[in-house]
């Protein structure tokens, strides 16, 4: 019974560590993928914009920048945010980000961007390219269509980036986005710029910000790096929270072992009377603690992985990633903790006087 509680304590702690680390690794790999995807593009937006959907910039900027030798391609984009058809909206990432693009968008992304289907032409109307997970959630495929604010969109392609973008981004012709958002003809949300050489990104930023008033240039990499920083902070926090949980598990082990030592004082006395050395007695107690740690570790990892999977199913924006390091860390933590918690009871057992112990004193 007490042993069971000790195992439960370790199990919960290890479960927490495993599931949280698994989720963390998933988030991190998602961010890392975004980093790779965005490589080198700059976003020109209105000064002080928090969300690009609220940014408005002059379309004429495209003309002004087109002769710049540092710039390889320019893509004006209009961002429209809507809730998913059929959904009530609200929490849980159930929004859809419609990005109106022109043909120049193709130069912004890598060649393997479209997974199935094709791009639409910039002059088309009522076409869309969906992120792979978004399409999955809508139950749509290439050539299917969906309705958004009384406009029907037929799907020409599915893109996949293995980032959160797959989950809520739909690319549509810029004219449709303009109609959906009532954006004036001479404005767009942002202008995405691909430099000739990533090294020149700072030069472009300086050029734009000094020559055109009211604009700022952001590097999505910076955002991603910030996100990674936040994740690292989060990771440390998770370690601390989990450590507290595991510590409680450890106290559980120590308590169970101590009680078990006290309960079995006569047995320990007998072991000593029949010629067990102190170290033999201590070792056997430690071995028992280790057993609790190993069993608790295994069960904890098992349920931790299941918990992470459940979290993934509940929150679509979350992708979990189980790494060997997480498994090893969680298990090692359980084992190390059980050994540390077993030391005091082991020493106590080893030091018992055989005659007093056998009388149960």
């Amino acid at each position: 019974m007490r042993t069971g509680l000790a195992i439960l304590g370790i199990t919960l702690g290890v479960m927490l560590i495993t599931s949280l680390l698994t989720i963390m690794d998933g988030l991190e790999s998602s961010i890392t993928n975004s980093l790779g995807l965005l490589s080198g593009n700059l976003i020109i937006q209105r000064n002080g914009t928090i969300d690009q959907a609220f940014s408005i910039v002059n379309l004429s900027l495209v003309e002004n920048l087109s002769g710049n030798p540092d710039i390889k391609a320019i893509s004006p984009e209009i961002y429209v945010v809507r809730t998913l058809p059929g959904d009530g909206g609200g929490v849980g990432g159930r929004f859809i980000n419609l990005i109106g693009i022109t043909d120049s968008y193709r130069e912004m992304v890598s060649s393997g961007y479209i997974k199935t289907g094709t791009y639409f032409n910039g002059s088309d109307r009522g076409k869309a390219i969906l992120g792979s997970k978004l399409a999955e959630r809508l139950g749509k495929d290439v050539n299917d269509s969906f309705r958004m604010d009384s406009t029907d969109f037929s799907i020409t392609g599915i893109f996949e980036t293995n980032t959160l973008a797959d989950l809520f981004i739909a690319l549509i012709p810029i004219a449709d986005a303009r109609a959906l958002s009532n954006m004036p003809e001479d404005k767009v949300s942002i202008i995405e710029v691909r430099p000739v050489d990533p090294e020149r990104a700072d030069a472009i930023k300086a050029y734009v910000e000094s020559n055109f008033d009211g604009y700022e240039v952001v590097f999505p990499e910076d955002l991603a790096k910030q996100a990674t920083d936040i994740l690292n902070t989060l990771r440390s926090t998770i370690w601390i929270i989990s450590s507290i949980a595991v510590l409680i598990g450890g106290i559980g082990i120590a308590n169970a072992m101590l009680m078990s030592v006290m309960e079995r004082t006569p047995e320990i006395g007998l072991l000593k009377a029949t010629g067990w050395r102190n170290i033999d007695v201590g070792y056997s107690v430690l071995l028992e603690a280790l057993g609790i740690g190993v069993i608790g570790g295994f069960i904890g990892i098992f349920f931790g992985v299941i918990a992470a999977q459940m979290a993934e199913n509940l929150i679509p924006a979350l992708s979990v990633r189980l790494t060997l390091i997480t498994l090893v860390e969680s298990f090692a933590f359980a084992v190390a903790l059980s050994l540390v918690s077993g030391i005091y009871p082991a020493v106590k057992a080893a030091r018992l006087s055989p005659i007093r112990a056998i009388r149960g004193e």
Partner: protein
Amino acid sequence: MIRTENLTKNYRLGQSVVHALRSVNLLINKGEFMSIVGPSGSGKTTLLNLIGALDRPTSGKVFLDEVDLTQIPERKLYEVRRNKIGFIFQQFHLIPTLTTLENVLIPVIPIKNNARFRDRAKELFSIVGLEERMNHKPNQLSGGEQQRVAICRALINDPEVLLCDEITGELDTVTGEKIIGLLKEINRRRGVTVLLVTHDTKIASESDRIVILTDGRITSDRTLKFHV
């Protein structure tokens, strides 16, 4: 051979000091079957514990085969307990979760290459007539049977001395007599020295020699049957 020299043991009980043993001198020959009798509190168990290296005297010496146990450091005493002494207790002290065979093998668990003791354990089980009960749990056995398992456990390391502390105290008279009979047989066949602490004079009368302890002193030492 066991020899005690002015063996004295005092211990503190609250404010007062209890003189459990007062300068006891005793010589026990190898192969003897000896009873130590006396009222409770007379120091019988203390004497047994000192001979069995479970406790340290306040003063005096205990020689086991001319080795002074009081000079052996605590960390080495396990060798004496393991190799020379077999203890049997009133409450059997079997571990309920283990089978009787596993219980018998407890003393040899820390010994390397202890597989060889399995055969010896089986042989001991047949000597005490429990070969059919080796895989039973202690609580499936009667008191007398449990005590016989405890005898096997005491004998597993082939000790020179069996120290028996009120071993019939939890048993009815008939069963108790059978246990004593078994010990006598082991004593006779194997030459193991047996020290029997009891307050049952009938059981004591089965032995070769009776020592009476009163207030920590030997007040009588009678040999009924000379050991050859």
